[in-house]
């Protein structure tokens, strides 16, 4: 037997051998399935449920190692992130947020995973199906005017903010060690956003390095030292229908350093919530949420914001 023949046999035996390595993948009970109109659920069922639910059903070719291992890993990761069989136990705002993230990942071409779509072409969400999901979510439906409690909360925040010394000297660093940058409020404005999905208004500010990068159009990638602050306020309507910022919700930073933050896509991520500026999350792993949400815009160096030019 020639060398090639021997190699084929060895490869064949190895291929059969690895079939015995079978990580478990079961379907836990469906406890709190998503509540949505049938046409919406049908799309989710067809395109998302195989990984993002407790009703996974693998075709024969997904059951063969080594692709089986990839599939098991993908399903477990997918369920941990978003599980349509258990989503009902989340607060309504978090459910809505998860659906918007899903629709945006579909729109940006990241979901279903391109690798999954290659072998399951039927899972691709068509433009018509995407329109059905968007119509269902309807982010800019008119919202009722702010109630007295919401207005009072803004007044209290404003009063406390203008009468106390800023910056608060006791701001703790984020759990990944990133320090709060109290000067963010004096940075220039990169853009503003009106967020119907989560009823917030946002301002995105940039430090001098970021602004210079915009002026000189050097953002592929953004230079080390560039930093953004994204500030979110509640989005409140008044009785005439005009919309104003309500309560301050949070401030988030992205700080570019391709070496220091190599493990988190080249950016340092941080978020402080409330006027007492409490660091977000329970462990330093919170950055995983930041990176996974920004992954669809990796070609834009992980930046969603489209900076307004003319800063010169």
């Amino acid at each position, binding site marked *: 037997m020639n060398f090639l023949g021997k190699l084929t046999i060895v490869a064949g035996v190895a291929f059969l051998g690895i079939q015995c390595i079978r990580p478990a993948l079961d379907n836990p009970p469906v406890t709190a399935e998503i509540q949505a109109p049938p046409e919406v659920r049908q799309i989710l069922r067809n395109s998302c449920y195989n990984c993002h639910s407790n009703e996974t059903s693998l075709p024969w*070719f997904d059951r063969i190692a080594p692709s089986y291992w990839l599939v098991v890993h993908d399903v477990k990761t997918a369920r941990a992130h978003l599980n349509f069989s258990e989503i009902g136990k989340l607060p309504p705002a978090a459910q809505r947020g998860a659906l918007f993230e899903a629709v945006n990942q579909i729109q940006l071409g990241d979901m279903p995973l391109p690798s999954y779509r290659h*072998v399951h072409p039927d899972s691709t969400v068509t433009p018509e199906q995407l329109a059905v999901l968007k119509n269902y979510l309807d982010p800019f439906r008119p919202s009722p005017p702010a109630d007295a409690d919401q207005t009072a909360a803004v007044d209290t925040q404003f009063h406390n903010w203008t009468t106390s010394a800023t910056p608060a000297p006791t701001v703790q660093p984020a759990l990944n060690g990133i320090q709060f940058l109290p000067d963010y409020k004096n940075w220039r404005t990169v853009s503003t956003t009106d967020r119907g999905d989560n009823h917030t208004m946002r301002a995105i500010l940039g430090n001098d390095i970021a602004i210079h990068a915009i002026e000189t159009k050097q953002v592929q990638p953004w230079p080390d030292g560039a930093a953004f602050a994204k500030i979110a306020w509640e989005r409140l309507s008044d009785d005439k229908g005009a919309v104003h910022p309500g309560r301050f919700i949070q401030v988030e930073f992205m700080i570019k350093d391709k070496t220091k933050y190599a493990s988190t896509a080249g950016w340092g991520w941080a978020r402080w919530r409330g006027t007492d500026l409490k660091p977000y999350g329970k462990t330093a792993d919170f950055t995983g949420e930041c990176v996974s949400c920004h992954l669809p815009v990796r070609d834009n160096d992980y930046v969603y914001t489209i900076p307004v030019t003319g800063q010169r």
Partner: protein
Amino acid sequence: MKKPIYVAALSLLALFSGCSHRTPAESDLFNTSAEIEASKLPFNPLHWKVIISGIDPQRQTMSTLYGNDLAVQSARAGHDVYPDGSVLSLVTWTQREDPHWFGARIPGKVKSVEFVTVGKDSSKSAYKRFEGPDLAPATLSDTEAASARRDSILGKRASVMP
């Protein structure tokens, strides 16, 4: 037995091809449509700090109020009256859908840029208005309308930024 290997190889290939870099279009990197031609204005408000932003859902516009250092300091301290020398600028854009995020709207085209320059007596502050993407200086014959705009701008409270 060739098909499973083929499938496995393909899924690996797809996994890696997902990591390749595509160069985004210029419009995905810069919002040039919302640019303000500052040479037509007495000041470039984008050089200033933000005081507050607002949205008019009926007109589908969004605006940001900027101020020079004097104005920003005063607004953030919660003072009711701006000191002499304060300049405020309200930039209003039409809104457009954010191509990167369904559920978000971002500045589209400039609709107007307004300036209020505060003198010794803030009730006599000067009001100037520039309209449209060309930022044509508007001549306001209706002084009542002008003073209403001026008062509205002077009456805006700063957003809380701890």
